[in-house]
């Protein structure tokens, strides 16, 4: 009976739950879903991670290749995070070129990575103006059940922490490269930016870590990215207005969550490196 009611009157279904201060999946308004991180499961990639937040699943794999640095930035390598929302993750998407949503999120994630300075691109340069690493970090959503940015950020950061690059001997005079695969070095990840998504329902209720139905029905979404104690990005694309206290409250909650997520990522990476 509840299932039929949910599909016929979704808004009323959720409102009824919220009036009793509980969400349909049994969480309170400020509860987060459990997070699972699995590192280095794809052997063909230089680093990989699978992350589940509730049912939302994102996989990230990094492939490292060699290239020539750009003439205007001769000391820097490249890190290219591309998010893909394939048709297999939700009936909302079609196969073919990336949707507007995928493009917008790719840019958001790239901006977060750049602003947080978690990777120093100069670490990726092997020889100035001659040789550098390019890291193709491909994020693929496998199950789209809300809070996608949160999952993507955890996947990307855990993946980068698991990346190992071989040592390269390069002779610029003769243009000879030699790769020493026995000497693999981990990539330095300086900071751990963690994203937390909130949804605003009916202009007043703030829900942490919304599922896809809640995201679709709510009147506004807010994503806060913190790295340690510092704020690195607040993304609020329109929607219901929030008061200053509400916003500060959300930031406090994200900071608290970021700490536990950072511990989780570090533990997952450490276990794998043992």
């Amino acid at each position, binding site marked *: 009976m509840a299932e039929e009611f949910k599909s016929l009157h979704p808004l009323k279904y959720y409102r009824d739950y919220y009036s009793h201060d509980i969400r349909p999946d049994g969480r309170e308004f400020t509860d987060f879903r459990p997070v699972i991180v699995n590192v280095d499961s794809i052997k063909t990639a230089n680093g990989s991670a699978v992350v589940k937040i509730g049912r939302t699943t994102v996989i990230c794999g990094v492939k490292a290749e060699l290239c020539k640095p750009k003439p205007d930035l001769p000391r820097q390598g490249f890190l290219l995070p591309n998010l893909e929302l394939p048709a*297999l993750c939700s009936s909302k998407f079609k196969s073919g070129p990336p949707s507007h949503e995928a493009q917008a999120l790719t840019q958001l994630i790239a901006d977060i990575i750049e602003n947080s300075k978690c990777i120093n691109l100069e670490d990726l340069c092997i020889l100035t103006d001659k040789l550098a690493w390019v890291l193709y970090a*491909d994020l693929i959503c*496998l199950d789209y*059940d809300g809070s996608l940015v949160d999952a993507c950020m955890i996947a990307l950061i855990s993946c980068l922490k698991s990346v190992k690059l071989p040592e390269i001997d390069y002779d610029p005079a003769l243009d000879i490269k030699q790769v020493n695969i026995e000497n693999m070095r981990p990539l330095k990840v300086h900071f751990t930016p963690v994203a937390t998504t909130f949804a605003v329902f009916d202009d007043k209720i703030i829900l942490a870590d919304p599922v896809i139905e809640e995201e679709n029905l709510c009147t506004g979404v807010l994503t806060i990215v913190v790295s340690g104690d510092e704020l690195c990005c607040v993304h609020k694309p329109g929607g219901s207005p929030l008061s200053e206290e509400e916003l500060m409250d959300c930031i406090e909650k994200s900071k608290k969550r970021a700490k536990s997520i950072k511990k989780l990522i570090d533990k997952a990476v450490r276990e794998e490196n043992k």
Partner: protein
Amino acid sequence: MPLDHKRLNGPEESVPYELFLRHKQETVEIKTLDEVTKDSDISREHPKIYLKTGTVSQAKGSAYIEIGETKIIVTVFDPKEIPNKQDYSLKGEISCEFKYAPFSCTKRRLHQQDNEEKRNSLIMKKALESAVCLHEIPNFQVAIHSLVLQNDGSALSGAIIAAGVALAEAGVPMFDIITSMTLEICRSNEIDSLRKMTGQIQVAGEKSHYGTIIISKLHANEQICQVHQTGFIPGDQLKNYITVLSKSCDSIAAIVKKCLLKEVVNHIK
């Protein structure tokens, strides 16, 4: 290649570092067909398989399969009307999409579907068409999407097995269980440049014979519904190879049955 403006683009040219390796990789040993048939029970000659249903919550049916080290995820969505169609058709349609993740192979794959992926989509479609009761879903189209997360042989076969299970979970009417297997015949004179693939059966060919054979099988009436062969093998050998593949398909069918049974039991609970 034209620039892809919908994604972040890096440098124009980049090369995989594996090209400049200092040490050669160690050689692998591959048995010939006679050796395989002689020293082991042939029905056990298939890679390790893990199969799970219901991995994607947003889809109607989904399955995840591991064959050796190959990892594939397949989803099936609700049937919808065939797009851009004027007249009514008595038979339904299935559309298949086969895609490698960019990081799934030793060499990086591009985002757009390449010719190999398109060919595999087509083979997958043909194989699955024989297993689905298309007359039961007139004028409707079932979309099947598969994504290879890691490729270590048998990617197409894995996608076909998983698609069969995902279709069953989605409740699409089907004639039969479908299984598939890949056999690679390696060139015996180039055996040192070979890579051991854990996902498929590998045998060493006689003289300079080489190739790949993929078969799909329906089990109720022991029908082989799809064969795809590339390479160069004498005709009389083909029969032996197909017998090996067919037997390993039989043992996979048992795994598929077990997996479906588990799904049904969970559903009743």
